[in-house]
Protein backbone atom coordinates (compact mmCIF):
# COMPACT_ATOMS: atom_id res chain seq x y z
CA UNK A 1 0.00 0.00 0.00
CA UNK A 2 1.28 3.44 -0.87
CA UNK A 3 1.36 5.78 2.06
CA UNK A 4 -1.15 8.18 0.63
CA UNK A 5 -4.02 7.38 2.95
CA UNK A 6 -4.86 9.99 5.53
CA UNK A 7 -7.43 8.97 8.02
CA UNK A 8 -10.21 10.53 6.00
CA UNK A 9 -9.00 9.20 2.67
CA UNK A 10 -9.07 5.59 3.76
CA UNK A 11 -12.57 4.83 2.69
CA UNK A 12 -11.84 6.06 -0.79
CA UNK A 13 -8.49 4.38 -1.08
CA UNK A 14 -9.02 0.95 0.34
CA UNK A 15 -11.38 -0.57 -2.27
CA UNK A 16 -8.81 0.10 -4.97
CA UNK A 17 -6.07 -1.38 -2.82
CA UNK A 18 -8.33 -4.27 -1.97
CA UNK A 19 -8.77 -5.17 -5.59
CA UNK A 20 -5.16 -4.73 -6.47
CA UNK A 21 -4.00 -6.65 -3.43
CA UNK A 22 -6.29 -9.64 -3.90
CA UNK A 23 -3.34 -11.78 -4.90
CA UNK A 24 -1.78 -10.88 -1.58
CA UNK A 25 -5.04 -11.78 0.15
CA UNK A 26 -4.93 -15.32 -1.07
CA UNK A 27 -1.23 -15.58 -0.31
CA UNK A 28 -1.82 -14.60 3.31
CA UNK A 29 -4.89 -16.73 3.76
CA UNK A 30 -3.82 -19.78 1.83
CA UNK A 31 -1.61 -21.29 4.57
CA UNK A 32 -4.49 -21.20 7.05
CA UNK A 33 -6.85 -22.75 4.52
CA UNK A 34 -4.34 -25.46 3.67
CA UNK A 35 -3.86 -26.41 7.33
CA UNK A 36 -7.59 -26.28 8.07
CA UNK A 37 -8.66 -28.29 5.06
CA UNK A 38 -5.69 -30.64 5.28
CA UNK A 39 -6.02 -31.46 8.94
CA UNK A 40 -9.77 -31.25 9.48
CA UNK A 41 -11.34 -31.43 6.03
CA UNK A 42 -9.61 -34.51 4.74
CA UNK A 43 -10.38 -36.69 7.77
CA UNK A 44 -13.99 -35.54 7.56
CA UNK A 45 -14.17 -36.65 3.92
CA UNK A 46 -12.42 -39.86 4.92
CA UNK A 47 -14.82 -40.82 7.72
CA UNK A 48 -17.80 -40.09 5.50
CA UNK A 49 -16.36 -42.38 2.80
CA UNK A 50 -15.43 -45.06 5.33
CA UNK A 51 -18.87 -44.95 6.88
CA UNK A 52 -20.37 -45.79 3.49
CA UNK A 53 -18.00 -48.66 2.77
CA UNK A 54 -18.19 -52.29 3.80
CA UNK A 55 -16.78 -53.08 7.20
CA UNK A 56 -13.23 -54.26 6.55
CA UNK A 57 -11.69 -55.01 9.86
CA UNK A 58 -8.10 -55.62 10.71
CA UNK A 59 -4.82 -53.81 10.52
CA UNK A 60 -4.31 -55.00 6.95
CA UNK A 61 -7.34 -53.08 5.75
CA UNK A 62 -6.11 -49.97 7.55
CA UNK A 63 -2.83 -49.91 5.68
CA UNK A 64 -3.64 -51.39 2.31
CA UNK A 65 -7.22 -51.06 1.14
CA UNK A 66 -7.32 -47.74 -0.62
CA UNK A 67 -10.60 -47.29 -2.41
CA UNK A 68 -11.10 -50.95 -3.22
CA UNK A 69 -13.70 -51.64 -0.56
CA UNK A 70 -17.22 -51.71 -2.03
CA UNK A 71 -19.77 -49.13 -1.02
CA UNK A 72 -22.70 -50.46 0.94
CA UNK A 73 -24.83 -47.37 1.26
CA UNK A 74 -26.19 -46.78 4.72
CA UNK A 75 -25.75 -50.34 5.95
CA UNK A 76 -23.14 -49.31 8.55
CA UNK A 77 -25.53 -46.72 9.88
CA UNK A 78 -28.44 -49.13 10.19
CA UNK A 79 -26.17 -51.58 11.97
CA UNK A 80 -24.87 -49.03 14.48
CA UNK A 81 -28.28 -47.45 15.01
CA UNK A 82 -30.00 -50.80 15.54
CA UNK A 83 -27.46 -51.71 18.21
CA UNK A 84 -29.02 -50.95 21.58
CA UNK A 85 -25.52 -50.37 23.01
CA UNK A 86 -25.19 -47.25 20.87
CA UNK A 87 -28.41 -45.77 22.23
CA UNK A 88 -27.42 -46.55 25.80
CA UNK A 89 -24.09 -44.84 25.23
CA UNK A 90 -25.73 -41.86 23.53
CA UNK A 91 -28.24 -41.44 26.34
CA UNK A 92 -25.48 -41.63 28.93
CA UNK A 93 -23.46 -39.04 27.00
CA UNK A 94 -26.40 -36.66 26.75
CA UNK A 95 -27.17 -36.90 30.47
CA UNK A 96 -23.47 -36.45 31.24
CA UNK A 97 -23.24 -33.43 28.95
CA UNK A 98 -26.32 -31.70 30.34
CA UNK A 99 -25.22 -32.28 33.93
CA UNK A 100 -21.65 -31.14 33.37
CA UNK A 101 -22.48 -28.10 31.28
CA UNK A 102 -25.20 -27.04 33.73
CA UNK A 103 -22.99 -27.47 36.78
CA UNK A 104 -19.99 -25.77 35.15
CA UNK A 105 -22.03 -22.77 34.05
CA UNK A 106 -23.92 -22.42 37.34
CA UNK A 107 -20.81 -22.68 39.49
CA UNK A 108 -18.81 -20.54 37.09
CA UNK A 109 -21.48 -17.85 37.25
CA UNK A 110 -21.52 -18.07 41.04
CA UNK A 111 -17.77 -17.62 41.26
CA UNK A 112 -17.88 -14.79 38.71
CA UNK A 113 -20.53 -12.92 40.72
CA UNK A 114 -18.52 -13.47 43.85
CA UNK A 115 -15.39 -12.13 42.14
CA UNK A 116 -17.21 -8.93 41.33
CA UNK A 117 -18.31 -8.39 44.90
CA UNK A 118 -15.27 -9.13 47.03
CA UNK A 119 -12.40 -6.85 47.94
CA UNK A 120 -9.37 -6.54 45.69
CA UNK A 121 -7.23 -8.90 47.73
CA UNK A 122 -9.68 -11.76 47.76
CA UNK A 123 -10.26 -11.23 44.06
CA UNK A 124 -6.59 -11.32 43.14
CA UNK A 125 -6.03 -14.51 45.12
CA UNK A 126 -9.09 -16.24 43.71
CA UNK A 127 -8.25 -15.25 40.13
CA UNK A 128 -4.69 -16.50 40.58
CA UNK A 129 -5.98 -19.82 41.88
CA UNK A 130 -8.45 -20.10 39.01
CA UNK A 131 -5.76 -19.41 36.43
CA UNK A 132 -3.61 -22.01 38.11
CA UNK A 133 -6.36 -24.63 38.02
CA UNK A 134 -7.09 -23.78 34.42
CA UNK A 135 -3.43 -24.39 33.60
CA UNK A 136 -3.42 -27.85 35.17
CA UNK A 137 -3.77 -30.36 32.33
CA UNK A 138 -6.88 -32.52 32.52
CA UNK A 139 -4.72 -35.62 32.48
CA UNK A 140 -3.09 -34.44 35.69
CA UNK A 141 -6.28 -33.33 37.41
CA UNK A 142 -7.82 -36.71 36.65
CA UNK A 143 -4.93 -38.48 38.37
CA UNK A 144 -5.42 -36.23 41.39
CA UNK A 145 -9.10 -36.97 41.67
CA UNK A 146 -8.54 -40.68 41.13
CA UNK A 147 -6.15 -40.55 44.05
CA UNK A 148 -8.52 -38.51 46.23
CA UNK A 149 -11.30 -41.02 45.61
CA UNK A 150 -9.24 -44.19 45.65
CA UNK A 151 -10.61 -46.85 47.98
CA UNK A 152 -7.45 -47.47 50.04
CA UNK A 153 -5.62 -44.18 50.19
CA UNK A 154 -8.40 -41.79 49.30
CA UNK A 155 -8.80 -38.73 51.43
CA UNK A 156 -12.48 -38.50 50.48
CA UNK A 157 -13.32 -41.88 51.99
CA UNK A 158 -11.31 -40.99 55.06
CA UNK A 159 -13.13 -37.69 55.51
CA UNK A 160 -16.58 -39.16 54.90
CA UNK A 161 -15.83 -42.00 57.26
CA UNK A 162 -15.30 -39.50 60.05
CA UNK A 163 -18.89 -38.27 59.69
CA UNK A 164 -20.88 -40.11 62.37
CA UNK A 165 -23.05 -42.86 60.96
CA UNK A 166 -21.26 -42.99 57.60
CA UNK A 167 -19.09 -45.99 56.86
CA UNK A 168 -16.98 -45.36 53.83
CA UNK A 169 -13.75 -47.13 54.72
CA UNK A 170 -12.53 -48.96 51.64
CA UNK A 171 -15.52 -47.84 49.61
CA UNK A 172 -14.85 -48.32 45.90
CA UNK A 173 -16.20 -45.32 44.02
CA UNK A 174 -15.56 -46.91 40.68
CA UNK A 175 -17.39 -50.22 41.15
CA UNK A 176 -20.65 -48.52 40.24
CA UNK A 177 -20.32 -46.55 36.98
CA UNK A 178 -22.84 -43.98 38.23
CA UNK A 179 -20.66 -43.11 41.20
CA UNK A 180 -17.59 -43.30 39.00
CA UNK A 181 -19.09 -40.91 36.48
CA UNK A 182 -20.00 -38.60 39.35
CA UNK A 183 -16.30 -38.46 40.20
CA UNK A 184 -15.55 -37.80 36.52
CA UNK A 185 -18.09 -34.98 36.68
CA UNK A 186 -16.21 -33.51 39.64
CA UNK A 187 -12.98 -33.45 37.62
CA UNK A 188 -14.61 -32.04 34.51
CA UNK A 189 -16.38 -29.29 36.46
CA UNK A 190 -13.26 -28.54 38.52
CA UNK A 191 -11.40 -28.00 35.27
CA UNK A 192 -14.20 -26.12 33.49
CA UNK A 193 -15.16 -23.57 36.15
CA UNK A 194 -11.99 -21.40 35.92
CA UNK A 195 -12.37 -20.47 32.24
CA UNK A 196 -16.09 -19.83 32.64
CA UNK A 197 -15.73 -17.87 35.88
CA UNK A 198 -12.91 -15.68 34.58
CA UNK A 199 -14.65 -14.94 31.28
CA UNK A 200 -17.94 -14.14 32.99
CA UNK A 201 -16.15 -12.02 35.59
CA UNK A 202 -14.50 -10.03 32.81
CA UNK A 203 -17.90 -9.75 31.13
CA UNK A 204 -19.63 -8.50 34.28
CA UNK A 205 -17.02 -5.78 34.80
CA UNK A 206 -18.00 -4.41 31.41
CA UNK A 207 -21.63 -3.91 32.33
CA UNK A 208 -22.09 -0.13 32.57
CA UNK A 209 -22.44 0.79 36.24
CA UNK A 210 -25.19 3.31 35.61
CA UNK A 211 -27.44 0.62 34.12
CA UNK A 212 -27.26 -1.46 37.29
CA UNK A 213 -27.60 1.72 39.32
CA UNK A 214 -30.72 2.69 37.38
CA UNK A 215 -32.22 -0.73 37.99
CA UNK A 216 -31.55 -0.32 41.69
CA UNK A 217 -33.04 3.15 41.81
CA UNK A 218 -36.12 1.83 40.04
CA UNK A 219 -36.57 -0.58 42.92
CA UNK A 220 -35.28 -3.79 41.38
CA UNK A 221 -34.14 -6.39 43.89
CA UNK A 222 -30.62 -7.77 43.40
CA UNK A 223 -32.18 -10.94 41.99
CA UNK A 224 -34.22 -8.90 39.49
CA UNK A 225 -31.15 -6.87 38.58
CA UNK A 226 -29.33 -10.14 37.96
CA UNK A 227 -32.01 -11.69 35.75
CA UNK A 228 -33.05 -8.49 33.95
CA UNK A 229 -29.74 -6.68 33.52
CA UNK A 230 -26.73 -8.92 34.14
CA UNK A 231 -27.98 -12.05 32.37
CA UNK A 232 -29.17 -10.31 29.18
CA UNK A 233 -25.92 -8.41 28.97
CA UNK A 234 -23.88 -11.60 29.35
CA UNK A 235 -26.06 -13.55 26.95
CA UNK A 236 -23.65 -13.62 23.97
CA UNK A 237 -20.78 -14.67 26.20
CA UNK A 238 -22.92 -17.27 27.95
CA UNK A 239 -24.02 -18.76 24.66
CA UNK A 240 -20.44 -19.08 23.45
CA UNK A 241 -19.31 -20.63 26.73
CA UNK A 242 -22.28 -22.97 26.76
CA UNK A 243 -21.71 -24.10 23.20
CA UNK A 244 -18.02 -24.75 23.75
CA UNK A 245 -18.80 -26.60 26.97
CA UNK A 246 -21.37 -28.76 25.19
CA UNK A 247 -18.86 -29.65 22.50
CA UNK A 248 -16.10 -30.42 25.01
CA UNK A 249 -18.26 -32.42 27.40
CA UNK A 250 -20.04 -34.32 24.64
CA UNK A 251 -16.68 -35.51 23.37
CA UNK A 252 -15.22 -36.15 26.83
CA UNK A 253 -12.37 -38.64 26.65
CA UNK A 254 -9.28 -37.90 28.76
CA UNK A 255 -10.99 -37.81 32.13
CA UNK A 256 -12.85 -41.10 31.70
CA UNK A 257 -9.89 -42.78 30.04
CA UNK A 258 -7.50 -41.95 32.87
CA UNK A 259 -10.07 -42.51 35.60
CA UNK A 260 -10.38 -46.09 34.37
CA UNK A 261 -6.64 -46.56 33.79
CA UNK A 262 -7.04 -46.87 30.04
CA UNK A 263 -9.67 -49.63 30.23
CA UNK A 264 -13.10 -48.03 30.59
CA UNK A 265 -15.78 -50.61 31.38
CA UNK A 266 -18.99 -50.58 29.28
CA UNK A 267 -20.79 -48.62 32.01
CA UNK A 268 -18.31 -45.78 31.59
CA UNK A 269 -18.61 -45.46 27.84
CA UNK A 270 -19.58 -42.10 26.46
CA UNK A 271 -19.66 -41.53 22.72
CA UNK A 272 -15.97 -40.61 22.50
CA UNK A 273 -14.83 -43.68 24.43
CA UNK A 274 -17.30 -45.91 22.57
CA UNK A 275 -16.02 -44.68 19.21
CA UNK A 276 -12.43 -45.30 20.26
CA UNK A 277 -13.00 -48.79 21.57
CA UNK A 278 -15.30 -49.81 18.68
CA UNK A 279 -13.25 -48.13 16.00
CA UNK A 280 -9.55 -47.99 16.82
CA UNK A 281 -9.45 -50.35 19.78
CA UNK A 282 -10.99 -53.31 17.95
CA UNK A 283 -9.90 -52.28 14.44
CA UNK A 284 -13.48 -51.87 13.16
CA UNK A 285 -12.54 -48.71 11.35
CA UNK A 286 -15.70 -48.41 9.31
CA UNK A 287 -17.86 -48.75 12.39
CA UNK A 288 -15.68 -46.18 14.15
CA UNK A 289 -16.05 -43.81 11.21
CA UNK A 290 -19.82 -44.32 11.23
CA UNK A 291 -20.01 -43.47 14.93
CA UNK A 292 -17.82 -40.45 14.20
CA UNK A 293 -20.21 -39.23 11.52
CA UNK A 294 -23.12 -39.69 13.94
CA UNK A 295 -21.22 -37.64 16.54
CA UNK A 296 -20.76 -34.88 13.99
CA UNK A 297 -24.47 -34.94 13.19
CA UNK A 298 -25.30 -34.62 16.88
CA UNK A 299 -23.05 -31.59 17.18
CA UNK A 300 -24.31 -30.02 13.96
CA UNK A 301 -27.33 -28.48 15.67
CA UNK A 302 -25.10 -26.95 18.32
CA UNK A 303 -22.78 -25.68 15.60
CA UNK A 304 -25.51 -23.90 13.68
CA UNK A 305 -26.63 -22.21 16.87
CA UNK A 306 -23.08 -21.14 17.68
CA UNK A 307 -22.21 -19.86 14.23
CA UNK A 308 -25.39 -17.82 14.04
CA UNK A 309 -24.65 -16.30 17.41
CA UNK A 310 -21.06 -15.46 16.51
CA UNK A 311 -22.06 -13.86 13.25
CA UNK A 312 -24.67 -11.80 15.04
CA UNK A 313 -21.98 -10.56 17.44
CA UNK A 314 -19.66 -9.92 14.51
CA UNK A 315 -22.31 -7.84 12.77
CA UNK A 316 -22.88 -5.75 15.84
CA UNK A 317 -19.26 -4.75 15.95
Amino acid at each position, binding site marked *: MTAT*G*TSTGRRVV*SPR*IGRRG*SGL*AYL*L*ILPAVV*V*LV*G*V*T*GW*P*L*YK*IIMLSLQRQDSGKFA*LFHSAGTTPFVGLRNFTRVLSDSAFWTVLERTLVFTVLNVGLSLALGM*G*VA*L*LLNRVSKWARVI*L*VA*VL*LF*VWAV*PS*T*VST*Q*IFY*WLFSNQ*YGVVNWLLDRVPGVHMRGHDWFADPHQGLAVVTAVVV*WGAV*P*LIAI*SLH*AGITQIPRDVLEAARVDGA*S*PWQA*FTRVTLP*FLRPLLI*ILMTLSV*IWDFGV*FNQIWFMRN*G*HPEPGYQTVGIYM*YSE*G*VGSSHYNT*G*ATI*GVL*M*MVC*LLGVMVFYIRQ*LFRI*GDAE
Partner: protein
Amino acid sequence: MATVVTDAPPASHRRGATARARSGRRLTPRKVVLALAAYAIAMIFVLPYAEMIIAALRPPRELLDRGYLPKHVDWSNFTSIWKTGFKDNLGASLKVAGGGTLLVLLVAMPAAYYTARRRFRGRAAFLLLVLATQMFQPAAMLVGIQREFISFNLPSPLLSLILVNAGFNLAFAVWILNAYFSSIPAELEEAAMVDGTSRLGALGRITLPLALPGIVTALIFTFIGAWNELLVALTLTLGAPDRQRPLTVGINNYIGQYSIDWGHLFAGSVIATLPVIALFALIEGKVVGGLTAGSIK
Protein backbone atom coordinates in the same frame (compact mmCIF):
# COMPACT_ATOMS: atom_id res chain seq x y z
CA MET B 1 -18.64 -26.25 47.36
CA ALA B 2 -22.00 -26.31 45.70
CA THR B 3 -23.69 -24.73 48.67
CA VAL B 4 -21.11 -22.01 49.09
CA VAL B 5 -21.22 -20.90 45.51
CA THR B 6 -24.89 -21.14 44.74
CA ASP B 7 -25.64 -19.28 47.93
CA ALA B 8 -24.04 -16.17 46.58
CA PRO B 9 -26.92 -14.65 44.55
CA PRO B 10 -29.69 -15.46 47.07
CA ALA B 11 -27.50 -14.15 49.89
CA SER B 12 -27.15 -10.84 48.17
CA HIS B 13 -30.88 -10.92 47.57
CA ARG B 14 -31.69 -11.29 51.24
CA ARG B 15 -29.24 -8.77 52.46
CA GLY B 16 -29.58 -6.44 49.51
CA ALA B 17 -31.77 -3.96 51.32
CA THR B 18 -29.58 -3.60 54.38
CA ALA B 19 -26.26 -3.67 52.62
CA ARG B 20 -26.92 -0.67 50.46
CA ALA B 21 -24.27 1.20 52.39
CA ARG B 22 -21.62 -0.92 50.77
CA SER B 23 -19.87 2.10 49.36
CA GLY B 24 -18.36 2.73 52.78
CA ARG B 25 -15.13 1.18 53.93
CA ARG B 26 -16.80 -0.40 56.95
CA LEU B 27 -16.47 -4.12 57.42
CA THR B 28 -20.06 -5.28 57.04
CA PRO B 29 -21.01 -8.90 57.84
CA ARG B 30 -21.88 -9.26 54.18
CA LYS B 31 -18.36 -8.35 53.12
CA VAL B 32 -16.87 -10.79 55.59
CA VAL B 33 -19.09 -13.62 54.41
CA LEU B 34 -18.28 -12.94 50.77
CA ALA B 35 -14.54 -12.74 51.42
CA LEU B 36 -14.65 -15.96 53.43
CA ALA B 37 -16.55 -17.62 50.59
CA ALA B 38 -13.92 -16.44 48.11
CA TYR B 39 -11.06 -17.82 50.22
CA ALA B 40 -12.95 -21.07 50.79
CA ILE B 41 -13.46 -21.53 47.07
CA ALA B 42 -9.81 -20.74 46.41
CA MET B 43 -8.90 -23.44 48.93
CA ILE B 44 -11.25 -25.96 47.37
CA PHE B 45 -9.67 -25.37 44.01
CA VAL B 46 -6.08 -25.51 45.12
CA LEU B 47 -6.18 -28.27 47.76
CA PRO B 48 -6.38 -31.24 45.39
CA TYR B 49 -3.29 -30.01 43.64
CA ALA B 50 -1.47 -29.50 46.92
CA GLU B 51 -2.44 -33.04 47.84
CA MET B 52 -0.72 -34.29 44.70
CA ILE B 53 2.52 -32.46 45.43
CA ILE B 54 2.47 -33.83 48.96
CA ALA B 55 1.83 -37.35 47.71
CA ALA B 56 4.73 -37.03 45.27
CA LEU B 57 7.01 -36.03 48.14
CA ARG B 58 5.91 -38.83 50.45
CA PRO B 59 8.32 -41.71 50.90
CA PRO B 60 6.64 -44.91 49.60
CA ARG B 61 6.32 -46.32 53.12
CA GLU B 62 4.25 -43.35 54.22
CA LEU B 63 1.88 -43.40 51.28
CA LEU B 64 -0.88 -44.81 53.48
CA ASP B 65 -0.35 -42.35 56.32
CA ARG B 66 -3.28 -40.26 57.31
CA GLY B 67 -1.34 -37.23 58.47
CA TYR B 68 -1.76 -34.47 55.93
CA LEU B 69 1.94 -33.61 55.86
CA PRO B 70 4.47 -36.41 55.38
CA LYS B 71 6.87 -37.09 58.23
CA HIS B 72 9.79 -37.14 55.85
CA VAL B 73 10.16 -35.28 52.61
CA ASP B 74 11.50 -37.56 49.92
CA TRP B 75 12.63 -36.06 46.64
CA SER B 76 13.61 -39.39 45.17
CA ASN B 77 10.50 -39.56 42.97
CA PHE B 78 11.59 -36.40 41.26
CA THR B 79 15.12 -37.62 40.68
CA SER B 80 14.51 -41.25 39.77
CA ILE B 81 11.77 -40.37 37.28
CA TRP B 82 14.38 -39.09 34.83
CA LYS B 83 15.63 -42.64 34.46
CA THR B 84 12.25 -43.96 33.33
CA GLY B 85 12.01 -42.49 29.84
CA PHE B 86 10.06 -39.58 31.22
CA LYS B 87 12.59 -37.18 29.72
CA ASP B 88 11.80 -38.40 26.20
CA ASN B 89 8.06 -38.07 26.79
CA LEU B 90 8.53 -34.57 28.15
CA GLY B 91 10.65 -33.66 25.13
CA ALA B 92 8.04 -35.10 22.78
CA SER B 93 5.30 -33.08 24.47
CA LEU B 94 7.36 -29.90 24.28
CA LYS B 95 8.00 -30.49 20.59
CA VAL B 96 4.35 -31.20 19.81
CA ALA B 97 2.93 -28.31 21.84
CA GLY B 98 5.69 -25.86 20.90
CA GLY B 99 5.66 -26.79 17.23
CA GLY B 100 1.88 -26.76 17.05
CA THR B 101 1.66 -23.36 18.73
CA LEU B 102 4.32 -21.88 16.47
CA LEU B 103 2.60 -23.20 13.37
CA VAL B 104 -0.76 -21.85 14.52
CA LEU B 105 0.61 -18.36 15.13
CA LEU B 106 2.54 -18.30 11.85
CA VAL B 107 -0.48 -19.33 9.85
CA ALA B 108 -3.23 -17.60 11.81
CA MET B 109 -1.76 -14.12 12.17
CA PRO B 110 -1.49 -13.18 8.48
CA ALA B 111 -4.91 -14.63 7.73
CA ALA B 112 -6.56 -12.97 10.72
CA TYR B 113 -4.90 -9.65 9.99
CA TYR B 114 -5.93 -9.59 6.39
CA THR B 115 -9.53 -10.62 7.01
CA ALA B 116 -9.76 -7.95 9.71
CA ARG B 117 -8.41 -5.20 7.45
CA ARG B 118 -9.79 -5.91 3.99
CA ARG B 119 -12.95 -7.03 2.30
CA PHE B 120 -12.17 -9.47 -0.45
CA ARG B 121 -14.02 -12.13 -2.35
CA GLY B 122 -14.19 -15.32 -0.30
CA ARG B 123 -13.82 -13.53 3.02
CA ALA B 124 -17.17 -14.70 4.37
CA ALA B 125 -16.49 -18.22 3.08
CA PHE B 126 -13.15 -18.24 4.85
CA LEU B 127 -14.66 -17.09 8.15
CA LEU B 128 -17.39 -19.70 7.85
CA LEU B 129 -14.77 -22.39 7.23
CA VAL B 130 -12.92 -21.24 10.33
CA LEU B 131 -16.06 -21.37 12.44
CA ALA B 132 -17.17 -24.72 11.14
CA THR B 133 -13.82 -26.31 11.88
CA GLN B 134 -13.89 -24.91 15.38
CA MET B 135 -16.76 -27.27 16.00
CA PHE B 136 -14.88 -30.27 14.66
CA GLN B 137 -13.74 -32.67 17.28
CA PRO B 138 -10.72 -34.87 16.79
CA ALA B 139 -12.74 -37.55 18.59
CA ALA B 140 -15.36 -37.75 15.84
CA MET B 141 -12.79 -37.85 13.04
CA LEU B 142 -10.23 -40.05 14.70
CA VAL B 143 -10.40 -42.87 12.18
CA GLY B 144 -10.04 -40.40 9.32
CA ILE B 145 -7.07 -38.72 10.97
CA GLN B 146 -5.43 -42.08 11.46
CA ARG B 147 -5.92 -42.98 7.78
CA GLU B 148 -4.66 -39.62 6.64
CA PHE B 149 -1.40 -39.80 8.52
CA ILE B 150 -0.79 -43.38 7.59
CA SER B 151 -0.96 -42.30 3.97
CA PHE B 152 1.25 -39.26 4.64
CA ASN B 153 3.84 -41.61 6.11
CA LEU B 154 5.70 -38.85 7.95
CA PRO B 155 9.08 -39.78 9.46
CA SER B 156 7.88 -39.22 13.03
CA PRO B 157 4.46 -39.34 14.67
CA LEU B 158 5.44 -36.11 16.40
CA LEU B 159 5.24 -34.28 13.07
CA SER B 160 1.75 -35.65 12.55
CA LEU B 161 0.78 -34.55 16.04
CA ILE B 162 2.13 -31.04 15.43
CA LEU B 163 -0.03 -30.80 12.32
CA VAL B 164 -3.15 -32.22 13.97
CA ASN B 165 -2.87 -29.98 17.01
CA ALA B 166 -2.24 -26.94 14.86
CA GLY B 167 -5.21 -27.80 12.65
CA PHE B 168 -7.67 -28.27 15.46
CA ASN B 169 -6.62 -25.14 17.33
CA LEU B 170 -6.27 -22.88 14.33
CA ALA B 171 -9.90 -21.88 14.15
CA PHE B 172 -9.96 -20.42 17.64
CA ALA B 173 -6.70 -18.56 17.03
CA VAL B 174 -7.90 -17.02 13.76
CA TRP B 175 -11.16 -15.98 15.36
CA ILE B 176 -9.68 -14.33 18.45
CA LEU B 177 -6.90 -12.65 16.45
CA ASN B 178 -9.40 -11.42 13.90
CA ALA B 179 -11.43 -9.84 16.72
CA TYR B 180 -8.30 -8.17 18.03
CA PHE B 181 -7.00 -6.83 14.76
CA SER B 182 -10.48 -5.52 13.94
CA SER B 183 -10.54 -3.58 17.19
CA ILE B 184 -7.33 -1.72 16.31
CA PRO B 185 -8.17 1.25 14.10
CA ALA B 186 -6.47 1.12 10.72
CA GLU B 187 -5.96 4.88 11.08
CA LEU B 188 -3.26 4.19 13.66
CA GLU B 189 -1.20 2.28 11.12
CA GLU B 190 -1.84 4.85 8.45
CA ALA B 191 -0.75 7.65 10.72
CA ALA B 192 2.49 5.82 11.40
CA MET B 193 3.03 5.34 7.67
CA VAL B 194 2.39 9.00 7.00
CA ASP B 195 5.11 9.66 9.53
CA GLY B 196 7.48 7.67 7.37
CA THR B 197 7.30 4.10 8.63
CA SER B 198 6.94 1.23 6.19
CA ARG B 199 3.85 -0.96 6.29
CA LEU B 200 5.77 -3.68 8.05
CA GLY B 201 7.18 -1.15 10.48
CA ALA B 202 3.68 0.03 11.32
CA LEU B 203 2.61 -3.57 11.81
CA GLY B 204 5.53 -4.36 14.08
CA ARG B 205 5.47 -1.19 16.13
CA ILE B 206 1.76 -0.39 16.34
CA THR B 207 -0.49 -3.30 15.51
CA LEU B 208 1.29 -6.29 16.97
CA PRO B 209 1.93 -4.72 20.39
CA LEU B 210 -1.72 -3.64 20.57
CA ALA B 211 -2.88 -7.10 19.56
CA LEU B 212 -0.59 -8.78 22.08
CA PRO B 213 -3.36 -9.86 24.48
CA GLY B 214 -5.09 -11.62 21.61
CA ILE B 215 -1.87 -13.23 20.42
CA VAL B 216 -1.14 -14.39 23.95
CA THR B 217 -4.62 -15.82 24.36
CA ALA B 218 -4.32 -17.73 21.11
CA LEU B 219 -0.89 -18.97 22.14
CA ILE B 220 -2.06 -20.17 25.56
CA PHE B 221 -5.09 -21.93 24.18
CA THR B 222 -3.12 -23.74 21.53
CA PHE B 223 -0.32 -24.72 23.86
CA ILE B 224 -2.63 -26.06 26.56
CA GLY B 225 -4.77 -27.83 24.00
CA ALA B 226 -1.77 -29.55 22.46
CA TRP B 227 -0.16 -30.26 25.83
CA ASN B 228 -3.35 -31.96 26.99
CA GLU B 229 -4.21 -33.82 23.84
CA LEU B 230 -4.49 -37.54 24.42
CA LEU B 231 -6.83 -39.24 21.96
CA VAL B 232 -5.00 -38.47 18.72
CA ALA B 233 -1.61 -38.99 20.36
CA LEU B 234 -2.78 -42.36 21.59
CA THR B 235 -3.91 -43.36 18.12
CA LEU B 236 -1.03 -42.00 16.06
CA THR B 237 1.69 -43.41 18.33
CA LEU B 238 0.13 -46.87 18.51
CA GLY B 239 3.11 -48.67 16.99
CA ALA B 240 5.70 -46.02 17.76
CA PRO B 241 8.59 -46.47 20.17
CA ASP B 242 8.05 -45.15 23.69
CA ARG B 243 10.37 -42.20 23.29
CA GLN B 244 8.18 -40.77 20.52
CA ARG B 245 5.16 -40.57 22.78
CA PRO B 246 4.07 -37.36 24.45
CA LEU B 247 3.51 -37.22 28.19
CA THR B 248 -0.21 -37.81 28.10
CA VAL B 249 0.44 -41.21 26.54
CA GLY B 250 3.75 -41.94 28.28
CA ILE B 251 2.38 -41.32 31.75
CA ASN B 252 0.27 -44.45 31.36
CA ASN B 253 3.48 -46.41 31.86
CA TYR B 254 3.18 -45.75 35.58
CA ILE B 255 -0.30 -47.20 35.66
CA GLY B 256 -0.18 -50.96 35.65
CA GLN B 257 -3.15 -53.28 35.34
CA TYR B 258 -2.93 -54.19 39.02
CA SER B 259 -0.74 -51.60 40.68
CA ILE B 260 0.02 -47.95 40.18
CA ASP B 261 3.38 -46.30 40.67
CA TRP B 262 1.85 -43.34 42.50
CA GLY B 263 5.14 -41.69 43.37
CA HIS B 264 6.37 -41.44 39.81
CA LEU B 265 2.89 -40.76 38.46
CA PHE B 266 2.50 -37.71 40.69
CA ALA B 267 6.07 -36.50 40.33
CA GLY B 268 5.59 -36.72 36.56
CA SER B 269 2.24 -34.95 36.77
CA VAL B 270 3.73 -32.13 38.83
CA ILE B 271 6.51 -31.69 36.28
CA ALA B 272 4.00 -31.89 33.42
CA THR B 273 2.14 -28.93 34.88
CA LEU B 274 5.20 -26.71 35.17
CA PRO B 275 5.60 -25.56 31.53
CA VAL B 276 1.97 -24.53 31.40
CA ILE B 277 2.14 -22.72 34.73
CA ALA B 278 5.34 -20.97 33.63
CA LEU B 279 3.65 -19.85 30.43
CA PHE B 280 0.71 -18.54 32.42
CA ALA B 281 2.90 -16.72 34.88
CA LEU B 282 4.74 -14.97 32.07
CA ILE B 283 1.66 -13.52 30.51
CA GLU B 284 -0.86 -13.66 33.30
CA GLY B 285 -2.42 -10.22 33.04
CA LYS B 286 -2.98 -10.48 29.32
CA VAL B 287 -5.28 -13.47 29.34
CA VAL B 288 -8.35 -12.15 31.09
CA GLY B 289 -8.80 -9.30 28.66
CA GLY B 290 -8.11 -11.52 25.69
CA LEU B 291 -10.92 -13.89 26.53
CA THR B 292 -13.77 -11.50 26.20
CA ALA B 293 -12.52 -9.55 23.22
CA GLY B 294 -14.36 -11.67 20.71
CA SER B 295 -17.65 -11.75 22.51
CA ILE B 296 -18.43 -8.60 24.42
CA LYS B 297 -17.39 -5.26 23.18
